[in-house]
């Protein structure tokens, strides 16, 4: 089937998952005449700069929103009021629609945004592949690189990493064009990264945190959990990068002792990532489903679970080194990592990159407004 055909057969099913533009215009039109939520976030700062909302503006606003839900619990116009506002859900839908539209192949994005099975299938597939490749050493106490050589690893993982990243970059470019982004200057990127690095937005605007798991009460747990996840992930990434450098530039192959950069980064990152993801999953369970993109919840859970497993299996592998479960663990670990690599552009993971793009654009827009 050609991609077009797949898309057509899909569009019959996706109506409940999409928010049409007229509805976005209606809701945001109410907000811009109200403005009570201006102090919550960058999304609302952008809302109040507009009187009307074209598709590009709505996309931009949606990717600035991090679903803190402050503007839902504070809104005097939520259901049962006839204005029936639900900005967090609206923007969550628009955001995901954006990713689904801009990251190709779209059919993959759509599946990974909405269903559990692609993740399960991929992981299962990789387990199978790795088992066959290394002769199914489920019970083995051998060190890593005697099971799979470093070069084989690189051969497998480099394309698994590079191809999705290319898809991501192309998707971001399409998104950037769609929102009318201008050529980037360093200052815009710097501002955006500074904001993302501290998760400034997640402080709720005035430091009070967000309304997530505790309904109308503000808490900062989500901010910290998200921070742990992000930095945990970055540390793991750094660990792998440093190890690769050691291997190729300094001819210093693994294994590394505990007091080495790859290990220090890896272990601390793994702990942060695992705990962060676990807390995020718990918070999501406590939070109201109706304030997110409901039909994408399952895939979001799955993705966070995947990330959790990446961290957990990595840590277990470290602690179980030299034991009889190491071989099996390694296969599982490599499989979830491989699945994760593929999922980078197609899953919820893309939100970070789109957010960064939106923050860059916001920096362009607000510095021009000055």
């Amino acid at each position, binding site marked *: 089937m050609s991609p077009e055909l797949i898309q057509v057969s899909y569009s019959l099913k996706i109506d409940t998952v999409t928010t049409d533009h007229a509805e976005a215009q209606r809701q945001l039109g*109410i907000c811009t*005449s109200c*403005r*009570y939520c201006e*102090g919550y976030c960058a999304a609302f700062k952008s809302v*109040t700069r507009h009187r009307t909302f074209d598709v590009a503006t709505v996309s931009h606003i949606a990717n600035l929103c991090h679903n803190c839900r*402050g503007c839902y619990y504070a809104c*005097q116009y939520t259901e049962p009021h006839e204005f029936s506002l639900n900005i967090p859900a609206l923007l969550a839908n628009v955001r995901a629609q954006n990713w689904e539209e801009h990251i190709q192949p779209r059919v993959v994005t759509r599946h990974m945004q909405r269903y559990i099975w692609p993740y399960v299938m991929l992981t299962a597939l990789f387990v199978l592949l790795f088992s066959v490749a290394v002769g199914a050493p489920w019970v083995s106490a051998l060190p890593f690189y005697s099971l799979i050589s470093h070069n084989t690893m690189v051969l497998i993982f480099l394309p698994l990493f590079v191809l999705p990243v290319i898809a991501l970059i192309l998707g971001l470019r399409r998104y950037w064009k769609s929102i009318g982004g201008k050529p980037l200057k360093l200052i815009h990127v710097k501002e955006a990264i500074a904001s993302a690095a501290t998760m400034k937005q997640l402080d709720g605007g005035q430091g009070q945190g967000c309304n997530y798991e505790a309904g109308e009460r503000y808490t900062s747990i989500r901010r910290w959990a998200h921070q742990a996840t992000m930095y945990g992930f970055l540390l793991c990434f750094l660990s792998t990068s440093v190890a690769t450098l050691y291997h190729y530039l300094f001819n210093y192959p693994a294994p590394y002792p505990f007091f080495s950069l790859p290990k220090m980064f890896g272990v601390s990152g793994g702990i942060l990532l695992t705990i962060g993801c676990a807390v995020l999953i718990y918070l999501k369970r406590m939070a109201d489903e109706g304030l997110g993109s409901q039909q994408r919840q399952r895939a979001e859970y799955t993705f966070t679970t995947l990330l959790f497993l990446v961290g957990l299996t990595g840590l277990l592998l470290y602690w179980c080194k030299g034991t009889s479960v190491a071989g099996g663990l390694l296969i599982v670990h490599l499989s979830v990592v491989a699945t994760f690599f593929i999922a980078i552009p197609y899953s919820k993971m893309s939100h970070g990159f789109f957010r960064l793009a939106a923050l860059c654009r916001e920096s362009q827009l607000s510095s021009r407004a000055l």
Partner: protein
Amino acid sequence: MPKVLDAPEADLSLVTPGVGPVTSDVLVVGGGNAGLCAAICAAEAGATVTLLERAPVAYRGGNSRHTRNFRCSHEASLGVLSGQYRVDEFYDDLLRVTKGNTDEALARMVIRNAPESYQWMSRQGVIFQPSLSGTLSLSRTNAFFLGGGKALVNAYYQRCEDLGVAIHYNATVIDLHIENNRFDGALIEVEGEQRYLRASSVIIAAGGFEANKEWLAEAWGDAAKNFLIRGTPYNRGEVLRQMLNHGADSIGDPTQCHAVAIDGRAPEYDGGIVTRLDCVPFSVVLNKHGERFYDEGEDVWPKRYAIWGRLVAAQPDQVAYSIVDEKSRELFMPSVFPAMSSDSLEELTEKLGLPVAQSVKTIKLFNDACSAGDFHPTELDGLCTTGLEPEKTNWARALDTPPYYGYELRPGVTFTYLGINVDDTARVTFDGRQAENIWAAGEIMAGNILGEGYLAGFGMTIGTVFGRIAGREAGQYVTGVDSSEL
């Protein structure tokens, strides 16, 4: 989750005041800003508190859920408020809008107490934000609530829950039993059943009667049925009426209400802030016969918007139409419903349901009376019509640049002025004598201070200051402990 009321059941005919268990030390009637502040302070003073709120959870908080700011004096910068807004300046502002129709001692007490209340509010979990875009003129005088009034109300309800206040939703007080200036209990209706609830004291914070169109009709006649109510449908004023029936001293003009011109397409109740329209000063306003009836440019809009409610209410069918052209489209805050628009005045007036020939003639006459000059949207520019009746004294520019935009205007009632008299301890008076155990706070007593007119953000200031005083006083009355030092 709404809690189930476990008060003793009672039927009107079976009620025997003075007999039966006393449910709590303090009964608070009304769960808006004033009632919540009172409940918190009474609970903090050590009293057991029951709060009765007529609305369901989703609509709790009365008109307070629609508010956005709190007017606050300050000697030096205070939180989100910069510079200085001294008590005297505040009081002068009040004198100007009320034309002196205020009680100076009570007014000054509220104004003096405001900065301390600002800090108290922050401690209860209310979060402030700098003034919203488009409200620069209020940035020195008014502290805005992050997320608006509903977020404030949420914070107070959480605080009440934490303090163990028993909160009952869907509970309407229909009568109070008062004898010899003493409250015994309240007759309430909850889910179709009537109960009698006894308490050692009561704080009345049930708002005004603005949502009671039959009552509004007593002063406004048939016109009242065309009024839109900007806030909650639950403020029907029965507690106010019962208090007056029981002999509480009244205050404030029983016939007056604060009404502004809002978008005619707004819902009948609860449309809130977004239905306001700020286009009048830059427009030509016609009544349903296509005639002008008042100087649209008399003064800057914040000073004039409140008279337009009454002006429109006085027009046939309580409706008017504000028309601007492309030149002015961006000069006012965006409207919640898109304007009617057209490239010709004929088509626009027809779309609006106006008599076309007459309307276009009125606009032509208006255009002819405009002359060239410097236009300044943000200040009185003196750009006026000549030889027109009524004239337009500022911002008079011909409607000559299509597309043209039109809005239907209707009177939107904010609050009513009639209330009950209180002293400086928020205690209600009967024939000039203090009630033994009855206090009042919020809109139901605001007439003591706001005899007429309105000052943006002052409703919340009055409610907060008096709510806190009422709560503290009632708490002190039942516990016998002076908590004013707390």
